[in-house]
């Protein structure tokens, strides 16, 4: 009975969505064949290839060839730190969002909530989990498994701590989450003394992307305010900056950073190549952030600023208390979008020869045991996969946020 009901239901769905009329049926057949073929090709590629080259080079892919031995604990500690901080923030957020109905708060220490927590986490982060499982299965590394489990446990405990924090501490938890990557970078760079030039693989691009976003954000806000200024000089300087950096390809800017910036600085002030790349990413992204923030500023009714003026608030207070909080909230999805762009753009470090994943992918194929076997498609695929999974996850989160903030509905 039920089965029959489902069948009819499914049949109706198929008729409605796949075979409404003759043209629709043809489309279904054509696209169905195409999808099936592509899925088959993709699966036979992933399952059919010998992943030995990637298995042996997994550490190189993730942190670069220069970090090995005990130094490997540096990125591991960084990941643990970030996992714990993110856990705390999620917990604190959960608590503040359900402040009026404490029963809805998910507490990791209550076994009854485990299923729900696991379900939600996997629903949101399944691509990342899939990747981690793939890597662990490929390398079969017990240490890797333990490190991953420890990171998950830390996030879990962090969340438990987060829901126990006093109500007003979301702000502090957010601050801690923002500081965690910075502390992680400092630990790796100074705690373990790993020189910038030795950073490689996804550690390098994650650092470059995160640092680029963090540093370009204040600069972008500053430029956006400058562009909206009534003072011609401020406006002119901001416009010139924004238009220059938006008009020139990032590749060219990176080449300039790599080949020309050294000429503009005294010798002792020239930063190392990865830092120069981060500076270029920052300057470049700031111009785009400026345009995003400008959009947010324009979406504010003029009356907001006038009302604040009429109350006698000084200009910088109007900006920081009234204008920016509203303008930024309006453009959060656009900010995430820009961050995804920057994350993808970190692959351009290939062109200035840094040990970024694409360059490493091709370097692996020059190793004696893998030389000249056409394995570059494999290693490139793996590098591309990580890029894809991170930006796909971020864009899903951004869409979720967009729906939550109701930005699209306005």
């Amino acid at each position: 009975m039920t089965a029959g009901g489902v069948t009819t239901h499914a049949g109706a769905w198929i008729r409605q969505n796949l075979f409404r009329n003759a043209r629709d049926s043809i489309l279904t057949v054509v696209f169905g064949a195409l999808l099936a073929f592509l899925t088959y090709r993709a699966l036979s590629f992933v399952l059919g290839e010998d992943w030995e080259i990637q298995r042996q080079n997994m550490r190189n892919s993730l942190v670069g060839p220069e970090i090995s031995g005990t130094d490997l604990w540096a990125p591991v500690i960084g990941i643990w730190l970030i996992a714990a901080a993110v856990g705390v923030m999620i917990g604190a957020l959960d608590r503040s969002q359900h402040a009026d109905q404490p029963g809805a708060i998910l507490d990791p220490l209550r076994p009854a909530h485990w299923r729900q927590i696991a379900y939600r986490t996997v629903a949101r982060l399944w691509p990342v989990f899939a990747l981690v499982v793939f890597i662990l299965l490929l390398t079969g590394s017990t240490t890797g498994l333990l490190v991953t489990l420890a990171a998950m446990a830390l996030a879990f405990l962090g969340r438990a701590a987060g829901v126990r924090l006093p109500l007003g501490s979301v702000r502090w938890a957010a601050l801690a989450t923002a500081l965690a990557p910075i502390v992680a970078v400092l630990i790796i760079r100074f705690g373990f003394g790993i020189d910038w030039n030795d950073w490689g693989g996804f550690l390098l691009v994650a650092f470059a992307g995160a640092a680029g976003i963090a540093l370009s954000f204040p600069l972008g806000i500053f430029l956006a305010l400058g562009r909206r200024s009534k003072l011609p000089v401020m406006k002119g300087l901001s416009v010139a900056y924004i238009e220059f950096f938006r008009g020139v390809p990032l590749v060219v800017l990176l080449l300039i950073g790599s080949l020309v910036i050294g000429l503009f600085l005294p010798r002792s002030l020239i930063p190392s190549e990865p830092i120069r790349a981060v500076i270029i990413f920052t300057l470049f992204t700031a111009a785009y952030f400026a345009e995003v923030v400008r959009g947010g500023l324009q979406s504010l009714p003029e009356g907001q600023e006038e009302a604040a003026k009429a109350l006698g608030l000084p200009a910088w207070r109007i900006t920081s208390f009234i204008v920016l909080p509203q303008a930024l909230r309006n453009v959060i999805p656009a900010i995430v979008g820009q961050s995804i762009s920057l994350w993808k753009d970190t692959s351009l470090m290939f062109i200035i020869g840094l040990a970024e994943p694409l360059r490493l992918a091709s370097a692996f194929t020059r190793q004696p045991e893998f030389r000249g076997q056409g394995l570059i498609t494999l290693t490139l695929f793996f590098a591309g996969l990580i890029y894809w999974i991170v930006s796909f996850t971020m864009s899903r989160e951004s869409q979720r946020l967009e729906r939550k903030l109701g930005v699209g509905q306005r």
Partner: protein
Amino acid sequence: MKQFGKRAALVALMAALAIGVAACGDDDDSSSDGGGDTASAGASLQSILDNGSFKCGTRDDLAGFAALDASGERAGFDTEYCRAIAAALFGDSEAVEFVDLQTADRFTALQSGEVDVLVRNTTWTGSRDGGEGANFLATTFYDGQGMLVSADSDFQSLKDMDGATICLTEGTTTQLNLEDAFTNAGVNVGEALPFADPELIQEAYNAGRCDGWTADRSALAGFRTNWPGGPENVRILDETFSKEPLGPAVSDGNDDLAQAVEWAVFATMQAEEFGITSANVDQIRDTSEDPNIRRFLGLEEEGGTFDPGLGLPADFNYQVIKQVGNYGEIFERNITPLGLERGVNALWTDGGLIYAPPYR
């Protein structure tokens, strides 16, 4: 409107003043301290010695010269010369910080001081000594550009390659030499495809995208040795159509460092001439009576230790040989596996070009 005009004029005036002040200030700076930071290109030998390690610009992707293996270890001819220099400067072949450079940015890295010494398979040319602000030192490897073609192709010399598609690495003199060589042979290049990455060339070549692959013969030999399906599938034409003396370089105006690096290189050559290797150096040091060798190894004599005033420790030759080896050893470890003979890179005593000035 009138007020605005005044305001604009005032702004312009202040800006002009400010820029003027800044410009004057800078003039004062550069005249008073003689350029100081900005004028000197590269760290001085003393500051490097104080630092305890030096930055060696190299690469990570050229088999035989400088490459990384899966465990992230560096190996290669250039890499060993970086270590030899470190052994000479600090008595420690590990006191070197490797900086991977691209073909396109290596001179900028040298100019900007990002690296102290460039040991990156770099050809000594007039314009590089001149316009690029580099100072080339003793040549460690005499190379020349060659052409790799398929074993079963009809090409016997460049003359046969009219209209051929040639793959090459971007950003080097390779393409300029290629065009010159084809012009001299009275033929035309069909297409020259400059790739960013040798791995891409190999893929493209295997697919039949190009008829020939031109690069330094040493590099081609390396690729041939590891050719998929065996080295017999490809051959290298006999013609050598360029002179490519490869050696370390420092930036112009850095004479102390230049001398030190140059003599670190000579140490390996002289050692081979003396027949000293990393294996027998201790024994020779203990037993040798030859004053040349004793002086070379920095042994204490009645009148003290010989110091040529290079700013290097007295036993730098010993350290180089002990920790890295002589020229022949370095060559054999790194270049011989590529299938290359010593050829012109033999000692002068064997009819080659490898020659170190007397150490006295």
